């Protein structure tokens, strides 16, 4: 079994089409993206005992909020610590373990709901499922980059777009299943968890069985590495541990963290913001529609911007995110004051597309700076920036808003300062991006270093 899942046994044979790799990656990312739709279970989980309405012994929303938080924390931890293991064992075994963890997490959580033991859900979805999220997120990234040296951005964009799309499938699927299974005695969550755990396990397993790594020296037919090398794209490789000793890693960490902090911050308040800025013309239902529209732009931006980065260059793409983004964030308060809702929606949608683009362009940026050999592991460690931003963004926005209101600022105007501060964060991100230079050659791996690892020095591939 371990042989079948080993790295050596997942090397592609001649004739294998590289276009099988993106759907293999998508079959994992479309599953784990469900995490962003977990909130659809919140209301039913507060009525597990009372069914029609909450009973005194039912779980409170504050208790349930920890499930998602734990999952995101373990996503970051497993991506950071599991990345090195991924590079050692390959994507197939990593995807298989991710499938077991994510699918198994649902099954343990189903038992937790059945027994009404919250710690089982914390353990199941939060800890074990969270580990599945992190391993599943990073597992196909380096493989895609190696299969698509000519279109690194587009390839990773396809997979990471799937993470955005996963919530769009997960939310209606959960509602559909709960409606099917609910009865006078049950809210239907146990059965829904069991079905979803099984479905997600199977889908992720299909991805694990289909993915292949390219053989040594492989290149796309008819493609040769560009003769005039872009200084910002290296053909050398930096080891995961060595990457942490370079300033580039921390600058890129800051670039991701600031882009995500600003995006998460405004995404979290989008629904309330549009209702308060356009009082009377936006109902809670249309505000929910607005959030749905933003999630579409978030997903589309992941593919669009990372694909565009293949032509624009990674550094220039982030310059656009930070410069245009700062301008858009600063313009939003004016749109609210002038009452131009169409433009307000358009600007918000553009911001969300660049928020998504920040996630999907970063793996290709890492591959350009640190080489392709350990990009999966380095990407995993960089995802701690996402976890940090996940805490920082909402806290910053809520704190600023509460402070403004306590100072007597009208609710509709309390967002203005927030938007200006977010624009300021993007300016800092612009400076961090501006400071990124090629990695000093002392950090590059030498032939001897590779011999210790597996006897292959991948830079030889690039000489062909």
């Amino acid at each position, binding site marked *: 079994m371990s042989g079948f899942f080993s790295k050596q046994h997942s090397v592609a044979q001649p004739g294998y089409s590289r276009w*099988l790799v993106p759907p293999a990656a998508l079959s994992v990312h479309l599953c784990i993206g469900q995490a962003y739709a977990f909130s659809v279970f919140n209301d039913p989980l507060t009525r597990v005992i009372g069914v029609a309405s909450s009973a005194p012994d039912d779980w409170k929303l504050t208790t349930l909020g920890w499930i998602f938080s734990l999952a995101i924390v373990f996503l970051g931890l497993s991506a950071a610590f599991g990345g090195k293991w991924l590079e050692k064992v390959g994507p197939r075994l990593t995807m298989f373990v991710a499938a077991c963890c994510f699918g198994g997490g649902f099954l343990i959580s189903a038992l937790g709901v059945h027994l009404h033991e919250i710690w089982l859900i914390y353990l199941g979805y939060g800890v074990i499922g969270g580990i599945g999220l992190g391993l599943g997120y990073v597992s196909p990234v380096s493989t895609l980059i190696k299969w698509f040296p000519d279109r690194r951005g587009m390839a990773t964009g396809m997979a990471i777009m799937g993470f955005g799309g996963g919530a769009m499938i997960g939310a209606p699927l959960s509602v559909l299943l709960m409606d099917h299974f609910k009865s006078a005695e049950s809210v239907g969550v146990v059965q829904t968890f069991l079905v979803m755990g099984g479905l997600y396990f199977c889908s992720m397993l299909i991805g694990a069985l289909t993915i*292949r790594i390219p053989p040594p020296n492989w290149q796309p037919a008819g493609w040769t590495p560009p003769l005039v090398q872009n200084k910002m794209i290296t053909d050398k490789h930096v080891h995961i541990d060595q990457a942490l000793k370079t300033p580039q890693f921390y600058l890129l960490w800051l670039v991701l963290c600031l882009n995500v902090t600003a995006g998460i911050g405004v995404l979290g308040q989008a629904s309330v913001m549009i209702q308060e800025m356009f009082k009377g013309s936006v109902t809670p239902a*249309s*505000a929910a*529609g607005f959030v*749905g529209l933003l999630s579409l732009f978030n997903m589309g931006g992941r593919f669009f911007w990372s694909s565009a980065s293949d032509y624009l260059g990674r550094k220039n793409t982030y310059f656009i995110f930070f410069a245009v983004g700062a301008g858009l964030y600063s313009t939003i308060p004016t749109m609210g004051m002038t009452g131009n809702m169409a433009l307000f929606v358009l600007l918000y949608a553009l911001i969300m597309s660049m928020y998504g683009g920040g996630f999907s362009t970063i793996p290709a940026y890492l591959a350009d700076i640190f080489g392709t050999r350990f990009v999966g592991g380095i990407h995993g460690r960089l995802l701690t920036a996402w976890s940090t931003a996940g805490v920082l963004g909402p806290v910053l926005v809520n704190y600023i808003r509460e402070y403004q209101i306590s100072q007597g600022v009208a609710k509709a105007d309390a967002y203005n300062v927030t938007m200006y501060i977010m624009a300021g964060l993007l300016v800092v991100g612009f400076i961090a991006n501006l400071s990124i230079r090629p990695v000093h050659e002392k950090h590059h791996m030498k032939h001897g270093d590779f011999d210790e690892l597996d006897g292959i020095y991948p830079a030889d591939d690039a000489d062909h």
Partner: protein
Amino acid sequence: MNNSESSKSSSPWLLAVFWLYVLIPLSWGVWSTLKKALALFG
């Protein structure tokens, strides 16, 4: 055991089926979200 016994080219049918396998649920998710988003313009 080698899982990739065949050295033949990947079948275009296999490619099409695998892409449909991921694109159909994704399209359903996008459609469900779009329907919700229409409320904004309704």
